[in-house]
């Protein structure tokens, strides 16, 4: 997969700092899986976090803080040293004992042949894909760790446009398959696009195939016209 469009520096920094809300963070996580460049950028920002931590003015701890921590140490760290395979075994066991991620597709979603939903998505509940305009279906991705989040899966037919909308905050779109264009350019699988709140746009999907994409919105989303009325209970 060759990625052309990446999250902005600020988004990657907020991801590294842990301050990016859960919705956009989910998209960044998916993007990072396919993008070594951004993985490196996140690691650099984490190193900046480390340097800031190291330079922080220490805050006084309660007198018994160390003693209390010491009491909880137990006898030995998890694996018994670098030579032991204990931790790794634990890790593997954990991986196998975890309930298998049931890749149950949301109702109404038709994935083009050979396309799979990215891993962090398969473990999440996704609502039914509701038709919202000709050729366009959307389903809400549940992000229970952040009740404020608005993350949607879109399935858009060839040549169709996402209904024109504006948003109060930044909109992040991650392309799972297919491609679309808006005045800022053309985007394909693996790309992440960030659109500022002041942008009003109506991205159009390529003629040669369905586009499945994931969108996260910071702030409320407003669709124009009749669709806005139809969707109100849904948003």
């Amino acid at each position, binding site marked *: 997969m060759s990625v052309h469009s990446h999250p*902005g*520096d*600020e988004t990657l*920094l*907020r991801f590294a*700092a*842990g*301050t990016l809300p*859960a919705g956009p963070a989910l998209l960044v996580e998916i993007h990072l899986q396919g993008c070594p460049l951004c993985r*490196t*950028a996140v*690691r*650099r920002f*984490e*190193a*900046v*976090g*480390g*340097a*800031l*931590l*190291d*330079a*922080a*003015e*220490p*805050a*006084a*701890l*309660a007198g018994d*803080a*160390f003693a*209390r*921590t*010491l009491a*909880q*140490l137990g*006898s*030995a*760290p*998890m*694996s*018994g*040293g*670098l*030579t*032991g*395979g204990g*931790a*790794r075994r634990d*890790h593997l066991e954990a*991986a196998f004992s975890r309930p298998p991620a049931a890749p149950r597709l949301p109702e109404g979603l038709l994935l083009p042949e050979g396309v799979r939903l990215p891993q962090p998505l398969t473990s999440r509940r996704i609502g039914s894909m509701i038709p919202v305009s000709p050729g366009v279906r959307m389903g809400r991705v549940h992000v*229970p*760790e*952040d*009740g404020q989040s608005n993350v949607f899966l879109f399935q858009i037919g060839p040549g169709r446009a996402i209904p024109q909308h504006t948003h109060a905050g930044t909109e992040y779109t991650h392309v799972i398959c297919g491609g679309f264009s808006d005045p800022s350019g053309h985007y394909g699988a693996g790309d992440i696009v960030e659109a500022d709140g002041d942008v009003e746009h109506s991205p159009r999907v390529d003629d040669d195939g369905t586009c499945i994409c994931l969108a996260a919105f910071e702030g409320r989303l407003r669709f124009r016209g009749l669709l806005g009325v139809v969707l109100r209970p849904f948003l």
Partner: protein
Amino acid sequence: MSALVVAIARTADREAFALLFRHFAPRVKAFLMRSGLAANAAEELAQETLLTVWRKASYFDPARAAASTWIFTIARNLSIDLKRRERHMGTVDLDAVDEEADETSGETILMSAEREARVRAALSKLSEEQATIVRLSFFQEKPHSQIAQELGIPLGTAKSRVRLALSRLRTLLEDLK
């Protein structure tokens, strides 16, 4: 500092742990308080962070990150978890992709220290305003308004200054793998 974590992994060295605790626990607490946590909660989480350092020392890979960076990511993950718990919601295992570190040599510990020095040098090359911007971007959930307020500039200006500061930081860290 990296050598101390490695000593814990190798020999469950409690003295090494004491030194790490003395240095990092008060700084983790300060760091968490700056990002909006109450003093009590920050202290709890600082202790939990150091406990995790003890338990997961064998996952630390000095070829990949400095000890301060690794401890930063532990504190960050714990605080994300805490915020999610506070919203009465499930947690996500952010460590699921961690792999145990390979054999550690003196050389990789040196690399780790060098990496740390390089990041510090890069940060020191930022202007004072840019350093403030980077710091606030790290700590604040809504950094733009905070930056605008602290620097006494309009919100729109704050956005473009953030962009400039971060692109300068990116350039300065270019050769850091």
